[in-house]
Protein backbone atom coordinates (compact mmCIF):
# COMPACT_ATOMS: atom_id res chain seq x y z
CA UNK A 1 0.00 0.00 0.00
CA UNK A 2 1.25 3.48 -0.82
CA UNK A 3 1.71 5.89 2.07
CA UNK A 4 -0.04 9.14 1.20
CA UNK A 5 0.47 10.89 4.52
CA UNK A 6 2.69 10.31 7.51
CA UNK A 7 3.55 12.16 10.65
CA UNK A 8 6.53 14.45 10.20
CA UNK A 9 9.76 13.48 11.91
CA UNK A 10 10.13 17.19 12.73
CA UNK A 11 7.82 16.79 15.70
CA UNK A 12 8.40 14.69 18.79
CA UNK A 13 5.78 12.21 19.99
CA UNK A 14 4.76 14.53 22.83
CA UNK A 15 1.09 15.45 22.92
CA UNK A 16 0.69 19.22 22.69
CA UNK A 17 -1.01 21.22 25.43
CA UNK A 18 -2.82 23.52 23.02
CA UNK A 19 -6.56 24.16 23.40
CA UNK A 20 -9.12 22.74 20.96
CA UNK A 21 -9.47 25.14 18.04
CA UNK A 22 -5.97 26.61 18.43
CA UNK A 23 -3.87 26.66 15.27
CA UNK A 24 -0.48 26.50 17.03
CA UNK A 25 -0.52 22.76 16.34
CA UNK A 26 -0.92 23.35 12.60
CA UNK A 27 1.84 25.97 12.55
CA UNK A 28 4.17 23.69 14.54
CA UNK A 29 3.54 20.97 12.00
CA UNK A 30 4.21 23.28 9.05
CA UNK A 31 7.56 24.38 10.51
CA UNK A 32 8.44 20.77 11.36
CA UNK A 33 7.52 19.49 7.88
CA UNK A 34 9.58 22.24 6.27
CA UNK A 35 12.63 21.40 8.40
CA UNK A 36 12.20 17.73 7.53
CA UNK A 37 11.85 18.48 3.82
CA UNK A 38 14.95 20.67 3.91
CA UNK A 39 16.77 17.85 5.73
CA UNK A 40 17.62 20.46 8.38
CA UNK A 41 16.40 18.89 11.63
CA UNK A 42 19.94 18.03 12.72
CA UNK A 43 21.32 21.44 11.79
CA UNK A 44 18.60 23.66 13.24
CA UNK A 45 18.40 25.40 16.59
CA UNK A 46 15.01 26.84 17.53
CA UNK A 47 14.27 29.52 20.09
CA UNK A 48 11.03 29.17 22.05
CA UNK A 49 9.52 32.33 23.45
CA UNK A 50 7.15 33.12 26.32
CA UNK A 51 3.43 32.62 25.83
CA UNK A 52 1.36 29.64 24.77
CA UNK A 53 4.28 28.36 22.69
CA UNK A 54 6.69 28.44 25.64
CA UNK A 55 6.80 24.64 25.62
CA UNK A 56 7.57 24.46 21.90
CA UNK A 57 10.87 22.80 22.84
CA UNK A 58 8.90 19.71 23.85
CA UNK A 59 7.40 19.44 20.38
CA UNK A 60 10.08 20.38 17.84
CA UNK A 61 12.46 17.53 17.13
CA UNK A 62 15.59 19.69 17.01
CA UNK A 63 17.85 21.50 19.47
CA UNK A 64 15.87 24.21 21.27
CA UNK A 65 16.69 27.11 23.57
CA UNK A 66 14.01 28.86 25.59
CA UNK A 67 14.21 32.66 25.75
CA UNK A 68 12.90 35.29 28.16
CA UNK A 69 9.72 37.17 27.25
CA UNK A 70 10.24 39.09 24.02
CA UNK A 71 13.97 38.37 23.84
CA UNK A 72 13.95 35.47 21.37
CA UNK A 73 15.42 37.56 18.49
CA UNK A 74 18.35 38.59 20.74
CA UNK A 75 18.92 34.98 21.83
CA UNK A 76 18.72 33.89 18.18
CA UNK A 77 21.26 36.61 17.32
CA UNK A 78 23.66 35.21 19.93
CA UNK A 79 23.25 31.71 18.49
CA UNK A 80 23.57 32.95 14.91
CA UNK A 81 26.81 34.80 15.61
CA UNK A 82 28.36 31.70 17.15
CA UNK A 83 27.03 28.78 15.12
CA UNK A 84 28.52 27.71 11.79
CA UNK A 85 26.79 29.10 8.72
CA UNK A 86 25.21 25.77 7.79
CA UNK A 87 23.08 25.90 10.94
CA UNK A 88 19.54 27.28 10.74
CA UNK A 89 18.20 29.40 13.58
CA UNK A 90 14.54 30.25 14.06
CA UNK A 91 12.37 31.89 16.68
CA UNK A 92 8.75 30.99 17.30
CA UNK A 93 6.96 33.93 18.94
CA UNK A 94 3.46 35.11 19.66
CA UNK A 95 2.12 38.63 19.22
CA UNK A 96 2.33 39.63 22.88
CA UNK A 97 5.92 38.44 23.00
CA UNK A 98 7.08 39.87 19.67
CA UNK A 99 4.97 43.00 19.18
CA UNK A 100 4.80 44.29 22.75
CA UNK A 101 7.61 43.47 25.18
CA UNK A 102 9.94 42.28 22.44
CA UNK A 103 9.43 45.10 19.93
CA UNK A 104 12.97 46.47 20.29
CA UNK A 105 14.53 43.04 19.80
CA UNK A 106 12.55 42.21 16.65
CA UNK A 107 13.07 45.64 15.07
CA UNK A 108 16.82 45.57 15.59
CA UNK A 109 17.22 41.94 14.52
CA UNK A 110 15.45 42.91 11.28
CA UNK A 111 17.46 46.12 10.92
CA UNK A 112 20.72 44.20 11.30
CA UNK A 113 19.57 41.76 8.65
CA UNK A 114 20.24 38.98 11.14
CA UNK A 115 20.22 35.73 9.16
CA UNK A 116 17.38 34.08 11.08
CA UNK A 117 13.80 32.98 10.45
CA UNK A 118 11.05 34.37 12.65
CA UNK A 119 7.71 32.58 12.90
CA UNK A 120 5.36 35.24 14.25
CA UNK A 121 2.03 33.81 15.40
CA UNK A 122 -0.59 36.56 15.57
CA UNK A 123 -3.85 35.68 17.30
CA UNK A 124 -4.68 39.23 18.42
CA UNK A 125 -4.57 38.37 22.12
CA UNK A 126 -2.41 37.23 25.05
CA UNK A 127 -3.42 33.58 25.24
CA UNK A 128 -1.30 32.01 27.98
CA UNK A 129 -2.09 34.64 30.62
CA UNK A 130 -5.83 34.43 30.06
CA UNK A 131 -6.86 36.62 27.17
CA UNK A 132 -5.58 40.14 27.74
CA UNK A 133 -5.23 42.85 25.10
CA UNK A 134 -2.22 42.49 22.80
CA UNK A 135 -0.75 45.22 20.57
CA UNK A 136 -2.50 43.35 17.76
CA UNK A 137 -5.95 43.23 19.40
CA UNK A 138 -8.52 44.64 16.97
CA UNK A 139 -10.60 47.74 17.65
CA UNK A 140 -13.75 46.76 19.52
CA UNK A 141 -12.34 43.37 20.44
CA UNK A 142 -13.26 42.37 24.00
CA UNK A 143 -10.46 40.98 26.12
CA UNK A 144 -9.82 40.58 29.86
CA UNK A 145 -8.20 44.04 29.91
CA UNK A 146 -10.53 45.68 27.38
CA UNK A 147 -13.88 44.51 28.80
CA UNK A 148 -15.75 47.14 26.78
CA UNK A 149 -13.75 46.37 23.66
CA UNK A 150 -10.52 48.00 22.48
CA UNK A 151 -10.99 51.71 21.93
CA UNK A 152 -8.67 53.81 19.78
CA UNK A 153 -8.93 56.68 22.30
CA UNK A 154 -8.04 54.56 25.31
CA UNK A 155 -5.71 51.87 23.99
CA UNK A 156 -4.61 53.17 20.62
CA UNK A 157 -4.62 51.26 17.37
CA UNK A 158 -3.37 47.76 16.62
CA UNK A 159 0.13 47.42 15.16
CA UNK A 160 0.73 45.86 11.76
CA UNK A 161 4.15 44.36 12.42
CA UNK A 162 4.84 42.96 8.96
CA UNK A 163 4.19 46.30 7.25
CA UNK A 164 6.30 48.09 9.85
CA UNK A 165 9.31 45.76 9.59
CA UNK A 166 9.06 45.84 5.80
CA UNK A 167 10.17 49.49 5.96
CA UNK A 168 13.57 48.35 7.24
CA UNK A 169 16.23 47.85 4.61
CA UNK A 170 17.73 45.00 6.63
CA UNK A 171 14.69 42.73 6.24
CA UNK A 172 15.02 40.32 3.31
CA UNK A 173 11.62 38.64 3.29
CA UNK A 174 8.36 39.37 5.09
CA UNK A 175 5.04 37.69 4.37
CA UNK A 176 1.72 37.44 6.20
CA UNK A 177 -0.21 34.19 5.85
CA UNK A 178 -3.22 32.63 7.53
CA UNK A 179 -4.38 29.27 8.86
CA UNK A 180 -8.15 29.67 8.55
CA UNK A 181 -8.65 27.10 5.76
CA UNK A 182 -6.65 24.32 4.06
CA UNK A 183 -5.73 26.43 1.03
CA UNK A 184 -4.21 29.10 3.27
CA UNK A 185 -2.49 26.49 5.42
CA UNK A 186 -0.71 25.22 2.31
CA UNK A 187 0.23 28.78 1.35
CA UNK A 188 1.54 29.30 4.86
CA UNK A 189 3.76 26.26 4.50
CA UNK A 190 5.13 27.56 1.23
CA UNK A 191 5.99 30.87 2.87
CA UNK A 192 7.66 29.19 5.84
CA UNK A 193 9.72 27.03 3.51
CA UNK A 194 10.74 30.08 1.52
CA UNK A 195 11.88 31.85 4.65
CA UNK A 196 14.13 28.95 5.70
CA UNK A 197 15.51 28.75 2.15
CA UNK A 198 16.32 32.45 2.33
CA UNK A 199 18.22 31.82 5.52
CA UNK A 200 20.01 28.88 3.98
CA UNK A 201 21.04 31.18 1.10
CA UNK A 202 22.36 33.62 3.73
CA UNK A 203 20.13 36.40 2.47
CA UNK A 204 19.31 37.69 5.91
CA UNK A 205 16.30 38.34 8.11
CA UNK A 206 12.94 36.87 7.21
CA UNK A 207 9.66 36.77 9.10
CA UNK A 208 6.44 34.93 8.40
CA UNK A 209 3.46 36.34 10.26
CA UNK A 210 0.85 33.64 10.67
CA UNK A 211 -2.71 34.68 11.54
CA UNK A 212 -3.90 32.23 14.13
CA UNK A 213 -6.89 31.50 16.33
CA UNK A 214 -7.55 31.55 20.07
CA UNK A 215 -10.98 30.00 20.54
CA UNK A 216 -10.63 29.86 24.32
CA UNK A 217 -9.94 33.54 24.82
CA UNK A 218 -11.99 34.80 21.89
CA UNK A 219 -14.99 32.96 23.36
CA UNK A 220 -15.78 31.33 20.04
CA UNK A 221 -16.09 27.75 18.84
CA UNK A 222 -13.20 26.42 16.73
CA UNK A 223 -15.28 26.80 13.59
CA UNK A 224 -16.36 30.34 14.49
CA UNK A 225 -12.75 31.18 15.24
CA UNK A 226 -11.60 30.30 11.75
CA UNK A 227 -14.42 32.41 10.33
CA UNK A 228 -13.38 35.28 12.64
CA UNK A 229 -9.83 35.21 11.25
CA UNK A 230 -11.28 35.53 7.74
CA UNK A 231 -13.95 38.14 8.47
CA UNK A 232 -12.23 40.26 11.16
CA UNK A 233 -8.48 39.76 11.11
CA UNK A 234 -7.67 39.59 7.40
CA UNK A 235 -9.37 42.92 6.58
CA UNK A 236 -7.07 44.64 9.11
CA UNK A 237 -4.08 42.35 8.56
CA UNK A 238 -4.06 41.76 4.80
CA UNK A 239 -2.23 38.68 3.55
CA UNK A 240 0.68 38.91 1.18
CA UNK A 241 4.37 39.55 0.72
CA UNK A 242 5.48 42.87 2.21
CA UNK A 243 9.16 42.61 1.54
CA UNK A 244 11.10 40.57 -0.92
CA UNK A 245 14.67 41.47 -1.59
CA UNK A 246 16.05 40.11 -4.82
CA UNK A 247 17.62 36.69 -4.47
CA UNK A 248 21.37 36.42 -4.80
CA UNK A 249 22.09 36.51 -8.52
CA UNK A 250 18.79 38.24 -9.28
CA UNK A 251 19.92 41.78 -8.48
CA UNK A 252 20.32 42.83 -12.10
Amino acid at each position, binding site marked *: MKTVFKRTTGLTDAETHYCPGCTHGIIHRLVAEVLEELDALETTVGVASVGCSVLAYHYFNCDMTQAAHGRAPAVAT*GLRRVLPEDRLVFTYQGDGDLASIGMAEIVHAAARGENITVIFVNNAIYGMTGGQMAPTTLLGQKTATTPEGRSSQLQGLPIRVSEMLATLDGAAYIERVSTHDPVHVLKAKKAIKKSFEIQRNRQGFSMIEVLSSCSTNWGLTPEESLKWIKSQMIPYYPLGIFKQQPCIGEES
Partner: protein
Amino acid sequence: MKGNEVIGEAAVYAGCRYFFGYPITPQSELVAYMAKRLPEVGGCFLQAESEISAINMVYGAASAGVRVMTSSSSPGFSLKQEGISYLAGAELPAVIVNIARGGPGLGNIQPSQADYFQVTKGGGHGDYYTPVLAPSSLQEIVSLTREAFRIADEYRTPVILLGDGMLGQMMEPVEFEDEKPLPKVREKKWATTGTKGDGPPKTITSLDLNDTQLEIRNNTLQQKYAAIKEKEVRVDEYLLDDAAYAIVAYGTVARIARTAIDRARKKGIAVGLIRPVSLWPFPATIISEYSSVLKAILTVEMSAGQMIEDVRLAVEGKAPVFFYGRTGGVIPTVDEILQQIDRLTEEVAI
Protein backbone atom coordinates in the same frame (compact mmCIF):
# COMPACT_ATOMS: atom_id res chain seq x y z
CA MET B 1 46.23 50.29 29.38
CA LYS B 2 43.09 51.53 31.08
CA GLY B 3 41.38 49.14 33.46
CA ASN B 4 38.46 48.69 31.09
CA GLU B 5 40.82 47.73 28.27
CA VAL B 6 42.68 45.32 30.54
CA ILE B 7 39.40 43.49 31.16
CA GLY B 8 38.97 43.15 27.40
CA GLU B 9 42.46 41.83 26.76
CA ALA B 10 42.24 39.54 29.79
CA ALA B 11 38.99 38.11 28.40
CA VAL B 12 40.61 37.48 25.02
CA TYR B 13 43.54 35.87 26.86
CA ALA B 14 41.03 33.66 28.69
CA GLY B 15 39.61 32.45 25.38
CA CYS B 16 36.57 34.69 25.13
CA ARG B 17 35.74 35.39 21.49
CA TYR B 18 32.21 36.78 21.76
CA PHE B 19 31.14 40.06 23.30
CA PHE B 20 27.74 41.75 23.20
CA GLY B 21 27.90 45.29 24.49
CA TYR B 22 26.08 48.55 24.95
CA PRO B 23 27.67 51.92 25.68
CA ILE B 24 27.48 53.35 29.19
CA THR B 25 30.01 55.44 31.11
CA PRO B 26 32.35 54.54 32.81
CA GLN B 27 32.77 51.17 31.04
CA SER B 28 32.58 52.26 27.39
CA GLU B 29 36.32 51.72 26.70
CA LEU B 30 35.77 47.99 27.20
CA VAL B 31 33.07 47.93 24.53
CA ALA B 32 35.28 49.89 22.13
CA TYR B 33 38.28 47.67 22.89
CA MET B 34 36.33 44.51 22.09
CA ALA B 35 34.95 46.03 18.88
CA LYS B 36 38.54 46.44 17.68
CA ARG B 37 40.13 43.38 19.26
CA LEU B 38 37.71 40.50 18.70
CA PRO B 39 37.75 40.62 14.89
CA GLU B 40 41.57 40.37 15.09
CA VAL B 41 41.29 37.00 16.85
CA GLY B 42 38.45 35.63 14.74
CA GLY B 43 35.74 36.50 17.25
CA CYS B 44 32.58 38.53 17.07
CA PHE B 45 31.70 41.82 18.71
CA LEU B 46 28.17 43.13 18.40
CA GLN B 47 26.70 46.33 19.77
CA ALA B 48 23.19 45.50 20.94
CA GLU B 49 20.19 47.84 20.96
CA SER B 50 20.02 47.76 24.76
CA GLU B 51 21.58 46.13 27.79
CA ILE B 52 18.59 43.80 27.81
CA SER B 53 19.30 42.61 24.30
CA ALA B 54 23.02 42.33 25.02
CA ILE B 55 22.50 39.95 27.95
CA ASN B 56 20.04 37.89 25.90
CA MET B 57 22.54 37.67 23.04
CA VAL B 58 24.94 36.38 25.68
CA TYR B 59 22.28 33.79 26.60
CA GLY B 60 22.09 32.70 22.95
CA ALA B 61 25.87 32.54 22.51
CA ALA B 62 26.31 30.69 25.81
CA SER B 63 23.63 28.22 24.63
CA ALA B 64 25.91 27.49 21.69
CA GLY B 65 28.70 26.62 24.13
CA VAL B 66 31.26 29.42 23.74
CA ARG B 67 32.99 31.73 26.23
CA VAL B 68 31.08 34.97 26.09
CA MET B 69 31.07 38.29 27.92
CA THR B 70 29.04 41.45 28.30
CA SER B 71 29.63 44.54 30.39
CA SER B 72 27.79 47.52 31.75
CA SER B 73 27.64 50.01 34.58
CA SER B 74 25.08 50.22 37.37
CA PRO B 75 21.87 51.45 35.62
CA GLY B 76 22.60 49.19 32.65
CA PHE B 77 23.53 46.35 34.97
CA SER B 78 20.06 46.61 36.55
CA LEU B 79 18.60 46.04 33.09
CA LYS B 80 20.63 42.86 32.73
CA GLN B 81 19.23 41.31 35.89
CA GLU B 82 16.36 39.54 34.15
CA GLY B 83 18.80 37.93 31.75
CA ILE B 84 21.23 36.98 34.54
CA SER B 85 18.40 35.23 36.38
CA TYR B 86 17.64 33.27 33.18
CA LEU B 87 21.33 32.40 32.73
CA ALA B 88 21.43 31.13 36.32
CA GLY B 89 18.18 29.18 35.90
CA ALA B 90 19.22 27.65 32.57
CA GLU B 91 22.75 27.01 33.95
CA LEU B 92 24.59 28.87 31.23
CA PRO B 93 28.18 30.05 31.73
CA ALA B 94 28.96 33.70 30.99
CA VAL B 95 30.94 36.58 32.46
CA ILE B 96 29.21 39.87 33.15
CA VAL B 97 31.21 42.96 34.05
CA ASN B 98 29.82 45.77 36.21
CA ILE B 99 31.99 48.90 36.34
CA ALA B 100 29.81 50.45 39.00
CA ARG B 101 28.94 54.13 39.31
CA GLY B 102 27.02 56.35 41.70
CA GLY B 103 23.31 55.66 42.15
CA PRO B 104 20.42 55.18 42.69
CA GLY B 105 18.65 56.03 39.46
CA LEU B 106 20.84 57.70 36.91
CA GLY B 107 23.15 58.78 39.75
CA ASN B 108 26.43 59.88 38.24
CA ILE B 109 29.49 58.42 36.54
CA GLN B 110 31.86 58.52 39.52
CA PRO B 111 33.10 55.33 41.25
CA SER B 112 30.78 53.57 43.67
CA GLN B 113 30.32 50.28 45.50
CA ALA B 114 26.59 50.72 45.95
CA ASP B 115 25.75 47.72 43.75
CA TYR B 116 27.09 45.27 46.36
CA PHE B 117 23.62 44.09 47.42
CA GLN B 118 22.55 43.65 43.82
CA VAL B 119 25.50 41.54 42.73
CA THR B 120 25.96 39.43 45.85
CA LYS B 121 22.35 38.63 46.74
CA GLY B 122 21.20 37.27 43.39
CA GLY B 123 19.98 40.55 41.96
CA GLY B 124 17.23 39.21 39.74
CA HIS B 125 14.21 37.09 40.63
CA GLY B 126 14.38 33.61 42.12
CA ASP B 127 16.73 31.67 44.41
CA TYR B 128 20.12 32.07 42.81
CA TYR B 129 23.57 33.49 43.40
CA THR B 130 26.30 34.53 41.05
CA PRO B 131 29.96 34.26 41.97
CA VAL B 132 31.33 37.82 42.22
CA LEU B 133 35.01 38.66 41.83
CA ALA B 134 36.25 42.12 42.82
CA PRO B 135 39.76 43.03 41.65
CA SER B 136 41.56 45.95 43.24
CA SER B 137 44.37 46.42 40.71
CA LEU B 138 44.75 46.13 36.98
CA GLN B 139 47.09 43.17 37.34
CA GLU B 140 44.46 41.45 39.43
CA ILE B 141 41.89 42.13 36.71
CA VAL B 142 43.98 39.86 34.47
CA SER B 143 43.97 36.94 36.90
CA LEU B 144 40.37 37.37 38.05
CA THR B 145 38.97 37.67 34.52
CA ARG B 146 40.58 34.32 33.81
CA GLU B 147 39.16 32.94 37.04
CA ALA B 148 35.72 34.29 36.16
CA PHE B 149 35.68 32.29 32.92
CA ARG B 150 37.02 29.20 34.69
CA ILE B 151 34.34 29.33 37.38
CA ALA B 152 31.63 30.04 34.79
CA ASP B 153 32.61 26.98 32.73
CA GLU B 154 33.28 24.69 35.66
CA TYR B 155 29.97 25.34 37.42
CA ARG B 156 27.84 26.34 34.41
CA THR B 157 26.95 29.66 36.00
CA PRO B 158 27.04 33.37 35.19
CA VAL B 159 29.92 35.08 37.02
CA ILE B 160 30.14 38.80 37.83
CA LEU B 161 33.36 40.81 37.64
CA LEU B 162 32.77 43.88 39.79
CA GLY B 163 34.84 47.03 39.46
CA ASP B 164 34.05 50.69 39.69
CA GLY B 165 34.65 53.83 37.67
CA MET B 166 38.08 54.33 39.23
CA LEU B 167 39.34 50.85 38.41
CA GLY B 168 37.88 51.06 34.91
CA GLN B 169 39.45 54.41 34.13
CA MET B 170 42.87 54.15 35.82
CA MET B 171 46.07 53.13 34.06
CA GLU B 172 48.68 50.72 35.42
CA PRO B 173 51.24 48.46 33.80
CA VAL B 174 50.12 44.83 33.55
CA GLU B 175 51.73 41.54 32.55
CA PHE B 176 49.70 38.97 30.68
CA GLU B 177 52.50 36.44 30.33
CA ASP B 178 52.44 35.72 34.07
CA GLU B 179 49.01 34.19 33.65
CA LYS B 180 48.70 30.65 32.46
CA PRO B 181 46.27 30.53 29.55
CA LEU B 182 42.92 29.04 30.47
CA PRO B 183 42.55 25.59 28.93
CA LYS B 184 40.37 25.39 25.85
CA VAL B 185 36.64 25.26 26.36
CA ARG B 186 35.79 21.72 27.30
CA GLU B 187 33.28 20.10 25.04
CA LYS B 188 29.89 21.23 26.24
CA LYS B 189 27.65 18.32 25.40
CA TRP B 190 24.61 20.23 26.60
CA ALA B 191 25.08 23.08 24.11
CA THR B 192 22.39 23.60 21.46
CA THR B 193 24.44 23.56 18.29
CA GLY B 194 22.27 21.26 16.19
CA THR B 195 21.99 17.55 16.87
CA LYS B 196 24.14 16.46 13.94
CA GLY B 197 26.32 13.62 15.13
CA ASP B 198 25.41 13.89 18.78
CA GLY B 199 22.18 12.15 19.49
CA PRO B 200 18.73 13.30 20.57
CA PRO B 201 17.67 16.97 20.64
CA LYS B 202 18.90 19.09 23.54
CA THR B 203 16.92 21.76 25.35
CA ILE B 204 18.09 24.78 27.29
CA THR B 205 15.44 26.26 29.54
CA SER B 206 14.79 27.58 33.01
CA LEU B 207 11.12 26.61 32.92
CA ASP B 208 9.58 23.74 34.82
CA LEU B 209 5.83 23.93 35.29
CA ASN B 210 5.81 20.97 37.65
CA ASP B 211 6.42 22.21 41.22
CA THR B 212 8.19 19.06 42.41
CA GLN B 213 10.42 19.03 39.36
CA LEU B 214 11.27 22.71 39.77
CA GLU B 215 12.13 22.13 43.41
CA ILE B 216 14.49 19.32 42.38
CA ARG B 217 16.04 21.66 39.82
CA ASN B 218 16.37 24.41 42.44
CA ASN B 219 17.94 22.01 44.93
CA THR B 220 20.50 21.08 42.29
CA LEU B 221 21.31 24.77 41.91
CA GLN B 222 21.68 25.11 45.67
CA GLN B 223 24.05 22.12 45.76
CA LYS B 224 26.14 23.85 43.13
CA TYR B 225 26.20 27.04 45.21
CA ALA B 226 27.24 25.03 48.25
CA ALA B 227 30.18 23.60 46.25
CA ILE B 228 31.15 27.10 45.08
CA LYS B 229 31.00 28.36 48.68
CA GLU B 230 33.30 25.56 49.72
CA LYS B 231 35.88 25.88 46.97
CA GLU B 232 35.84 29.37 45.51
CA VAL B 233 36.31 31.74 48.45
CA ARG B 234 39.13 34.21 47.80
CA VAL B 235 40.47 36.67 50.29
CA ASP B 236 43.59 38.78 50.58
CA GLU B 237 45.04 39.23 54.06
CA TYR B 238 47.44 42.06 54.87
CA LEU B 239 49.35 42.59 58.15
CA LEU B 240 46.92 40.51 60.14
CA ASP B 241 49.32 38.28 62.11
CA ASP B 242 49.74 40.68 64.99
CA ALA B 243 46.72 42.89 64.31
CA ALA B 244 44.47 44.18 67.07
CA TYR B 245 42.23 45.89 64.54
CA ALA B 246 41.24 45.10 60.98
CA ILE B 247 39.69 46.96 58.13
CA VAL B 248 37.41 45.01 55.81
CA ALA B 249 37.33 46.61 52.37
CA TYR B 250 37.33 45.45 48.75
CA GLY B 251 38.21 46.75 45.31
CA THR B 252 39.25 50.38 44.99
CA VAL B 253 38.64 51.14 48.67
CA ALA B 254 40.98 48.32 49.73
CA ARG B 255 43.86 50.07 47.92
CA ILE B 256 43.23 53.29 49.82
CA ALA B 257 42.76 51.39 53.08
CA ARG B 258 46.10 49.67 52.57
CA THR B 259 47.92 53.00 52.39
CA ALA B 260 46.04 54.20 55.49
CA ILE B 261 47.05 50.98 57.27
CA ASP B 262 50.72 51.52 56.38
CA ARG B 263 50.54 55.01 57.87
CA ALA B 264 48.72 53.79 60.99
CA ARG B 265 51.40 51.12 61.46
CA LYS B 266 54.05 53.88 61.45
CA LYS B 267 52.09 55.47 64.29
CA GLY B 268 52.25 52.13 66.11
CA ILE B 269 48.65 51.02 65.61
CA ALA B 270 48.43 47.27 64.95
CA VAL B 271 45.89 47.29 62.15
CA GLY B 272 45.56 44.96 59.17
CA LEU B 273 43.37 44.46 56.13
CA ILE B 274 40.93 41.71 55.22
CA ARG B 275 40.13 42.16 51.54
CA PRO B 276 37.34 39.97 50.20
CA VAL B 277 38.30 39.14 46.61
CA SER B 278 35.26 36.95 46.07
CA LEU B 279 32.28 38.95 47.37
CA TRP B 280 30.09 35.93 46.82
CA PRO B 281 31.02 33.48 48.17
CA PHE B 282 31.87 35.87 51.00
CA PRO B 283 34.93 35.00 53.13
CA ALA B 284 32.77 34.67 56.23
CA THR B 285 34.79 31.91 57.90
CA ILE B 286 38.06 33.83 57.73
CA ILE B 287 36.42 37.01 59.07
CA SER B 288 34.78 34.96 61.81
CA GLU B 289 38.12 33.45 62.84
CA TYR B 290 39.88 36.82 62.99
CA SER B 291 37.00 38.44 64.85
CA SER B 292 37.67 36.19 67.86
CA VAL B 293 41.11 37.78 68.33
CA LEU B 294 40.49 41.33 67.08
CA LYS B 295 39.51 44.24 69.32
CA ALA B 296 37.43 45.90 66.62
CA ILE B 297 36.67 45.78 62.91
CA LEU B 298 36.13 48.72 60.56
CA THR B 299 34.28 48.25 57.30
CA VAL B 300 34.97 50.91 54.69
CA GLU B 301 32.87 51.11 51.55
CA MET B 302 31.89 53.51 48.80
CA SER B 303 28.27 53.00 49.82
CA ALA B 304 25.97 53.79 52.71
CA GLY B 305 26.83 50.37 54.18
CA GLN B 306 26.13 47.18 52.27
CA MET B 307 28.99 44.71 52.71
CA ILE B 308 28.93 45.56 56.43
CA GLU B 309 25.81 43.37 56.72
CA ASP B 310 27.84 40.34 55.61
CA VAL B 311 30.72 41.35 57.86
CA ARG B 312 28.38 41.56 60.89
CA LEU B 313 26.85 38.18 60.02
CA ALA B 314 30.34 36.69 59.87
CA VAL B 315 31.52 38.35 63.09
CA GLU B 316 28.40 37.24 65.01
CA GLY B 317 28.98 39.84 67.73
CA LYS B 318 32.46 38.56 68.61
CA ALA B 319 33.94 42.03 68.02
CA PRO B 320 32.48 45.50 67.53
CA VAL B 321 32.05 46.39 63.83
CA PHE B 322 32.30 50.04 62.78
CA PHE B 323 31.49 51.58 59.46
CA TYR B 324 32.81 54.36 57.33
CA GLY B 325 31.31 55.04 53.92
CA ARG B 326 31.19 57.72 51.26
CA THR B 327 28.50 57.68 48.60
CA GLY B 328 27.50 59.44 45.41
CA GLY B 329 30.85 58.83 43.75
CA VAL B 330 32.93 60.39 46.54
CA ILE B 331 36.09 58.36 47.15
CA PRO B 332 37.25 58.11 50.79
CA THR B 333 40.75 59.54 51.26
CA VAL B 334 43.69 58.00 53.11
CA ASP B 335 43.36 60.76 55.74
CA GLU B 336 39.71 60.01 56.30
CA ILE B 337 40.39 56.31 56.80
CA LEU B 338 43.31 57.10 59.08
CA GLN B 339 40.98 59.25 61.21
CA GLN B 340 38.57 56.33 61.35
CA ILE B 341 41.36 54.04 62.52
CA ASP B 342 42.12 56.54 65.30
CA ARG B 343 38.45 56.67 66.21
CA LEU B 344 38.42 52.87 66.34
CA THR B 345 41.24 52.73 68.87
CA GLU B 346 39.59 55.45 70.99
CA GLU B 347 36.14 53.83 70.96
CA VAL B 348 37.53 50.46 71.98
CA ALA B 349 39.70 52.04 74.69
CA ILE B 350 36.54 53.52 76.28
